[in-house]
């Protein structure tokens, strides 16, 4: 390691007051313009901003910091809850899409709301479900289960007594 490299390595410590130049080093600095220019640069850089930044009020800075962090945690929590609700709503829509075709009556007379399902079994976009809490989504699913009970009307033992003509009349009446 050359004398220039040794001095270069020590410059930050001397500039920060952690060390001092020895006589040999001082002599080298006086004789070496390159090292002297570097020393002036490091000295200036070590002081840069000292006249500008005093010690900030740590208590005030921390109080502001903690308030911001708490506010952000609350926001994150709300966003997470919204995503959870949206996920549940999407899951509910998927369940409805899977279950409705199996429970729908073979005829078009079943009173399943057209906003919930189609006869082709395709799920409809249901943005209004996205904001519903889980309990209400479950209640909708329950209602769908109940509505599928209409199809059981076709299994009514009373129909066994109908002849073909009566059955055709009943179907005609349901179909309007």
């Amino acid at each position, binding site marked *: 390691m050359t004398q220039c490299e040794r001095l270069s390595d020590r410059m930050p410590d001397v500039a920060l007051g952690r060390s001092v130049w020895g006589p040999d080093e001082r002599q080298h600095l006086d004789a070496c313009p390159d090292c002297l220019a570097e020393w002036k640069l*490091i000295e*200036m850089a070590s002081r840069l901003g000292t006249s*500008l930044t005093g010690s900030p009020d740590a208590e005030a800075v921390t109080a502001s910091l903690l308030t911001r962090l708490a506010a952000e945690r609350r926001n994150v929590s709300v966003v997470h809850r919204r995503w959870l609700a949206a996920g549940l709503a999407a899951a509910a829509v998927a369940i409805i899409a899977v279950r409705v075709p199996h429970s729908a009556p073979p005829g078009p007379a079943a009173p399943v709301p057209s906003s919930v399902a189609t006869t082709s079994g395709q799920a409809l976009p249901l943005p209004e479900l996205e904001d519903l809490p889980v309990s209400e989504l479950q209640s909708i699913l329950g209602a769908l289960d109940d509505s599928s009970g209409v199809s059981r009307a076709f299994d009514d033992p009373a129909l066994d007594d109908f002849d073909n003509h009566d059955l055709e009349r009943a179907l005609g009446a349901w179909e309007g």
Partner: protein
Amino acid sequence: MSAPTPQPIADHDLVRAYREGDEQAATELVRRHAAAVGRFLYSAGAAPGEVDDLVQETLFRAFRALDRWRRQGAFRSWLFSISSNLLKDEFRKRKGRQMVSIEDRDIPDRSDPAGELAATEAETRLREGLSRLPRLQREVFLLRAQEGTEYQQIALALGTTPGAARVHYHHAVRRLKELVS
């Protein structure tokens, strides 16, 4: 015989204490590092009037991401790294316009007006030069010149090797010498 001086609590212990709910630990971390972060930001080209806000933002980002602090690097070096990212974002927002400016607060109160002006000009040139350096060169240089951080520590903090950190430092010195002298 004097009583032994109590060792200051290490940064990583303060971080752990804060994460366990001790807000005083956060205050101590701010007390230790806020001014140094301010100087770093100013030296790297932040406008004096924006330093306080940038310090706040740096600390906010740091405390929000404490999980990501790798303890092998010094906490302050990690803060500098966050500051540097923040400053880069600010430069980008201003579409490359540098934030270096001479304001009243920049001018130190000295009795020699001519010397004062020369010093201020040199400092401004230094700050401009620093803000133009590649990021790693700037960070290594400021960690060495303002903190006296060893290359080993710089390498850990910045995810490089001590040899590469030394090379970055010397490149920075060479370029800054040309600008300042």
